[in-house]
């Protein structure tokens, strides 16, 4: 499948390149004293590349590209200065022949369709008050203060972003999370209760995530161990060495109570969890993807309960906490 994706990309890239070249050529042709031989040379080079590209180019694109080049070559011939016909007309009449300029009709269509340049809106966004951010930290224990789960409705839950952490233990058990974004985490342990929405993991390495959610997407990550309870099929893209297991509900006790599952509208029955049917977007063949495995039942139990113990530990000794973090990561999530 990877090869197919490459072909698609190559076709798209080729079309884009050719379009750019054509636009450049029409623009050159539009100028009053365009160098026609240069345009002709570039046109023939483009034509040659198109012929070569027919190997991978779909029929539609072949036609479209050929049509683009045809337009240019038509323009080139019509815009060519009309060669003066040899006649015995008087000198006066000959000199009155207007210098052939580019015909009006040859104006490139593409240029007319381009939107007028406009000032871009300021990219800076005011931080949203409801979105929580935990970022840029290392070697520490992070547990945001509990938020009272008053109405236990998904409408009161907030998005949480956890980013750029190295060697941290993060406990989100006391939070009522709507959607969770994890980005650039290295050697971290993160534990969270039932989430009504989705979890997006991007560029994480050697972590243990204990997650319960509706949807899970993992991108560009290596070496994760994920005890998981999920309502839909988890998907992975450009990942390797991922290990999935069962969510340690027993160890989580109150944090994963039936009420909290119900608040997130997720079936608490372990049999309803789809954590075993991971879909790898980079492995569309039949058979098991080499990029992920299921943990053995001993491992998933140990991994889940130990991560849980770390996240809820009241150990004051930071060194001891970091040591157990390292041990956990080394045991379960090193690629």
């Amino acid at each position: 499948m990877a090869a197919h994706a490459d072909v698609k990309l190559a076709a798209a890239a080729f079309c884009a390149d050719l379009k750019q070249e054509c636009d450049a050529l029409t623009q050159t042709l539009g100028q009053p004293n365009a160098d026609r031989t240069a345009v002709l040379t570039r046109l023939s080079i483009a034509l040659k590349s198109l012929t070569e590209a027919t190997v991978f180019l779909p029929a539609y694109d072949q036609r479209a590209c050929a049509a683009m080049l045809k337009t240019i070559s038509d323009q080139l011939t019509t815009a060519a200065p009309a060669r003066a016909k040899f006649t015995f007309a008087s000198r006066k009449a000959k000199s009155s022949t207007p210098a052939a300029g580019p015909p009006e009709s040859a104006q490139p269509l593409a240029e007319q369709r381009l939107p007028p340049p406009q000032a871009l809106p300021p990219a800076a966004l005011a931080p949203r008050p409801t979105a929580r951010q935990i970022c840029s930290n290392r070697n520490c224990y992070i547990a945001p203060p509990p938020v009272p789960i008053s109405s236990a409705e998904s409408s009161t839950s907030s998005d949480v972003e956890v980013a750029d952490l190295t060697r941290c233990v993060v406990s989100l058990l006391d939070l009522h999370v709507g959607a969770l974004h994890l980005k650039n985490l290295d050697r971290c342990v993160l534990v969270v209760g039932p989430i009504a929405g989705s979890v997006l993991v991007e560029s994480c390495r050697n972590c243990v995530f204990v997650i319960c959610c509706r949807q899970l997407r993992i991108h560009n990550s290596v070496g994760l161990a994920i005890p998981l309870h999920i309502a839909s099929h988890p998907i992975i893209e450009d990942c390797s060495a991922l290990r999935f297991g069962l969510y340690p509900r027993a160890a989580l006790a109150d944090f994963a109570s039936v009420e909290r599952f119900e608040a997130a509208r997720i079936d608490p029955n372990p049999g309803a969890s789809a954590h075993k049917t991971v879909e790898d977007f980079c492995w569309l063949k039949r058979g098991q993807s080499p990029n992920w495995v299921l943990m053995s039942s001993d491992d998933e139990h140990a991994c889940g309960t130990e991560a849980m113990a770390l996240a809820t530990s009241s150990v004051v000794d930071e060194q001891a906490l970091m040591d157990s973090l390292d041990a956990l990561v080394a045991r379960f999530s090193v690629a």
Partner: protein
Amino acid sequence: MGLLTVLKKLKQKEKEIRILILGLDNAGKTTILKRINGEDISTISPTLGFNIKTLDYNGYKLNIWDVGGQKSIRSYWRNYFEQTDGLVWVVDSADRPDRFADCKAELHSLLTEERLAGASLLIFANKQDLPGALSSEEIAKLLDLKAIQTHHWQIVGCSAVTGDNLLTGMDWVVTDISKRIYMLD
């Protein structure tokens, strides 16, 4: 019966509209489709491939195509462009700021696509039920929608989970398309 009458009758029989739903991953495309179709939305997995639904709507037959939005399969979107009457672009209004940049780039590159040239463009600012959601005006600004002059477009704030405004949006897109295609009727 004259030929014109025969043609008109044939045309009336199949007032088909083809709608393509696209957007980044986790925008809620499948949820919107299933919600409109009245299906269960609690166990939707990220789409690997595509879903098609055909439904009757105000006398039109809508063929709605929902194509997965994961990065690795976005290059396949172009396979679905042909004969599209309406493009529905779905945005997660509560998304991270860096993903809005992605979203804008993907949308604007779609709009240069020749095969989508005639399509009406509906932007669904989805997930308005979430507390962190941006308003449709803010999203219009972020995606630089004002710069779009090649397509008829409209932005509608909605929530697939509650079902708010989904029909408003679909009404707009169907009306806009039918004005264009079936203006003779």
